[in-house]
């Protein structure tokens, strides 16, 4: 067996295990962490397929950003597993149907290429081939309009998310940094000039002996 194949099987086994634990773990935080492990294994498999750009972006975006925020939410929520399982049986038919649909779709996609694997382009890329450069060239030439469109849609999503969650509360106390910075010393401190000593009415001198 080639070493690459061996690596693939090890990583794939970890991926399947992590994916299974994601849906079977009792603790939601553990489930989220297993999902992170699944992303890692998936990135490794993509790396084996010489799609290094996608693999690294998967780690950067999903592991580095999305899952961190996801963990935030999961840790803050008080999730009661028992209550979630309460209506398990009534949801089962619907869930099973969606699952079967997904399996069927994947089977359709995979069977098309699986049986004609020989028709696929060769796995080995020429020396000096840069996945990243090739992808960038395609994105900014042939697919530049869909790409720009997608980014505009994302921007709309970002603004919408901010606007939906932005609640202006009347009783919030906040500081205005520019006002704070604009403060002059004279606004806050007033120096009062006064004599350090005051002459008291002359007292009768006391004669002291010794020093």
């Amino acid at each position: 067996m080639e070493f690459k194949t061996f690596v693939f099987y090890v990583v794939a086994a970890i991926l399947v295990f992590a994916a299974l634990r994601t849906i079977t773990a009792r603790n939601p935080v553990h489930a989220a962490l297993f999902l992170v492990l699944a992303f890692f294994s998936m990135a490794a498999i993509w790396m084996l397929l010489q799609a290094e750009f996608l693999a690294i972006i998967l780690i950067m975006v999903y592991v580095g950003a999305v899952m961190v925020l996801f963990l935030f939410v999961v840790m803050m929520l008080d999730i009661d597993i028992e209550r979630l399982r309460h209506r398990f049986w009534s949801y089962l038919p619907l869930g099973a149907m969606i699952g079967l649909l997904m399996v069927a779709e994947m089977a359709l996609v995979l069977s098309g290429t699986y049986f004609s694997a020989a028709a696929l382009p060769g796995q080995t890329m020429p020396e000096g081939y840069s996945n990243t450069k090739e992808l960038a060239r395609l994105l900014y030439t042939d697919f530049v309009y869909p790409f720009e469109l997608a980014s505009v849609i994302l921007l709309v999503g970002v603004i919408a998310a901010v606007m939906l969650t932005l609640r202006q509360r009347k009783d919030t106390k906040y500081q205005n940094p520019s006002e704070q910075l604009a403060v002059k010393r004279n606004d806050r401190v007033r120096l009062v000039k006064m004599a350090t000593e005051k002459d008291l009415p002359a007292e009768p001198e006391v004669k002291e002996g010794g020093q």
Partner: protein
Amino acid sequence: MEALILNFFQWFWNLFGLWDVIWPWFQHIWPLVWSIMRIVAILVPLILGVAYLPYFERKVIAYMHVRIGPNRVGPLGLLQPIADSLKLMFKEVLFPAKASTKLFIFGPIVALAPALIAWAVVPFADGWVLADIDAGVLFLLAVTSIGVYGIIISGWASNSKYPFLGAMRATAQMISYEIAMGMALVAVLMVSNSLNISEIVRVQDQGRFADMGLSVLSWNFIPLLPMFLVYFISGVAETNRAPFDVVEGESEIVAGHMVEYSGMTFALFFLAEYANMILIAFLASIFFLGGWLSPVGFLPDGHHWLAAKVSFLLFCFLWFRATFPRYRYDQIMRLGWKVFIPICITWILVVGVWMMSPFNIWK
């Protein structure tokens, strides 16, 4: 270098007349052995640096405060780091009741591991790099973004309120500044036209000033000065160093996510913080200060230049700590989101227009 060491092996085993016996199977594992040797050659100086950086920190800050600093253990207190690490090693590792033990141990490991993995793509001189990969910058960004898990996992696994709140606070700060750092690098990528880190350094050795023998004027920090400042300041915030060290605060949050840790598990967080500092100093020197390039043409390039630049930036880390008062938490977030990110976006636009204009200096 590789041939030299291989020759040494051959000479060594020939002393016993065993080379011909060993070579047939040794040649298969040699690439592995060679990689491990290079990894050790990077990690051992790094760990030593991590051990001695706190010593220098204490000394530098002490001199800035007109104190003496550690001077009891060994001459000039030079054995202080060894004493400290021995102490940490022999201390008991405590586990809080009802803490999630596996994740409790896993947290510090995840904090430290990315800080070490990132060194795989850091070039020390021309060709002196463990993995000279084309997507080096992406690899760095991906690996360093994992470090935040160490904090969030340890905060949650401690099963205690202060660590949890501290972890939330630290995580929010780190992911905010990661964005600014990544955007600062976008400008570097635009002018270098490459994601390969060694290539980014080589590009800084080109241009009119470099041809005149003044390579220092063609380094990235001059045309990209705002990006350099944003990158380095975000780096300080990313490593949770003063003046952005709100992760710890005796009067409010105690030691943040590290409250429940003791002994070696605490030491791992400590190691991670200083390893990250050294990494940020290296990256800032490589991306903006010309890496191993010498500032003037008549002096040869070499790793000592990188060492000098890194030492200066590390000194800046310590200098900041002795100089600036801490930021308030909402001001930290404001600086990251409302100041640095707009600066980055503007400067990316400026660089883009600049590169398309006739005044392009990066051709």
